[in-house]
């Protein structure tokens, strides 16, 4: 314990590290331990019943788990790509507007303020087969048989994706628009004089400049992907017949409904590693991007 150790940055960081240590690190170590036991909430003494890797072995053999895992990956792949694409499109669109741009930008932030649970409820209401806005709208055009958006096994997943995309596209749009507004005019004009068309300008000047902003947006998003749980939880609860079951809803079901904490913790470790790998990847890209931004 030399004096160097207690230099001010260590002291300044201490409260943060204590808070995170108590609420995140210690519980995670504890859940790591429980994932090697047969702990059930209904039988407290089973906390000390060490079963080795059995929970993880059960996981590997569990078809439902792999289905949920695959579905989660698919969900994230589709949702994140579309959010990025739409966000970029919206940012380019709004960047072209000269009149009322600030107002539009503010309106665009609207979905960001919605709690995920609220987003879920809102789309549950819109997609409701009986009284939902969407079916009522289709009714106007003579489409009188109610479409079971959240009950049909294929439509349900699509409906959830739409809700998720509605909620999170604006983060991409806002950050990419900030990037677009910062692009210097000169290189674009020079390129135009040299005879580049719009696509070439976009590909060779705009997009490279936007890359850091894309990684900022992806990093911020990757911190929160687990919040999709809220949306799925309220919209379908993983149904119909587990067709929309993602890793997170499955963890909640097995942990709290079945009270099988050991198994649920083994599963949640997979989801934690997934999230962390995800964030780590984008974060390393971000650090590079940050260096690039700093140079300008």
């Amino acid at each position, binding site marked *: 314990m030399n004096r160097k150790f207690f230099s001010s940055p260590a002291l300044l960081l201490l409260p*943060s590290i204590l808070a*995170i240590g108590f609420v995140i690190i210690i519980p995670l170590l504890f859940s790591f331990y429980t994932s090697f036991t047969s702990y059930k*909430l209904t039988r407290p003494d089973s906390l000390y019943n060490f079963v080795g890797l059995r929970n993880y072995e059960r996981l590997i053999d569990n078809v439902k788990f792999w289905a949920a895992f695959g579905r989660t990956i698919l969900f994230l792949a589709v949702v994140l790509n579309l959010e990025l694409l739409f966000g970029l499109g919206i940012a380019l669109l709004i960047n072209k507007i000269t009149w009322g741009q600030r107002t539009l930008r503010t309106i665009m932030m609207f979905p960001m303020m919605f709690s995920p649970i609220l987003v879920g409820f809102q789309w549950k209401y819109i997609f409701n087969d009986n*009284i939902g806005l969407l079916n009522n709208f289709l009714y106007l055009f003579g489409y009188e048989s109610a479409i079971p958006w959240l009950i049909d096994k294929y439509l349900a997943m699509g409906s959830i994706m739409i809700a998720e995309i509605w909620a999170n596209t604006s983060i991409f749009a806002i950050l990419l628009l900030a990037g677009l507004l910062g692009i210097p005019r000169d290189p674009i004009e020079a390129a135009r004089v040299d005879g580049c068309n719009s696509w070439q300008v976009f590909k060779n000047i705009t997009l490279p400049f936007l890359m850091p902003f894309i990684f900022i947006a992806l990093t911020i998003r990757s*911190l929160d992907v687990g919040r999709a749980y809220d949306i799925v939880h309220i919209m379908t609860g993983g149904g119909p017949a587990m067709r929309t079951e993602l890793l997170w809803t499955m963890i909640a079901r097995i942990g709290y409904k079945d009270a099988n904490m050991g198994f649920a913790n083994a599963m*949640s470790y997979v989801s934690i590693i997934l999230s962390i790998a995800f964030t780590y990847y984008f974060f390393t890209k971000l650090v590079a991007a940050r260096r690039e931004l700093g140079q300008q």
Partner: protein
Amino acid sequence: MKQIKKISFWFLVMFLLILICMPGIWIFVSAFRPNPEILAKPANWIPDRWTIHQFTQMFSINGYVSVPAFKYLMNSVIISSVSTVIAITIGMMGGYAFARFNFKGKNKIFLGLMLARAVPGISLSLPLFILFAKIGIINTSFGVILVYVAMNVPFTIWLTDGFFRQIPKEMSEVARTDGCTRLQAFWNVELPLAGPGIGAAAIFAFLLSWNEYALASIITRTVHSKTLPIGMMDYLDEFTINWAGMCAIAVVMIVPAVILTFIVQKHLVSGLTFGGVKG
């Protein structure tokens, strides 16, 4: 040709606006409609009559409480405010350390903090539920506040780090050669300059606590500590849903969030992009 392009451009913008605003507007309208009108088939697009029935019931002006929304609102306000103040205070200290000092493993610690934040709420809730029950802080505001502080600290550090970096180091150095201590220089020079940015970080933290569901749904059990997002589920029965009631509580949740976001939107963007752009 140019005319067509212009018209289709504005058509696209309008379509976008409708897509963004319509769901929220529909919730808002539904909150002030009587339930039979919501259930009408074919749909009743323009409300025949407006009612604040759901709100009076929620806030028990009639003395009859279906869902104790006022208590939930109070819990939400207290939990979000207290956790925000604490998270901002300790997060700001951390952000200052990252912006102003060079120390061993700096980038690794920063990365570690961010990764801690990436743990999905529902996965974290399993061990928290067991541990909090064991030490007896389950179903207390204190427990929820503790969790939200830890959830908000990493992001606050990220944002405030960026804001402190924008302030030239020399300003604090000048103050210190004039005889200020580091703390005085921070208090009198750097904090006022970073003020708006810290305000934005605070509102970001507030909104995260205000909107959080997965963890609170496990830690809070009764009216004693339930927040609004959890209370909202009171309207959701197994087979029937009180749509108007849910819309009303949704309005209660969203209005403060909208106001707060509008106040800070400019600083939010510049904070997230490390001040690389002017907002």
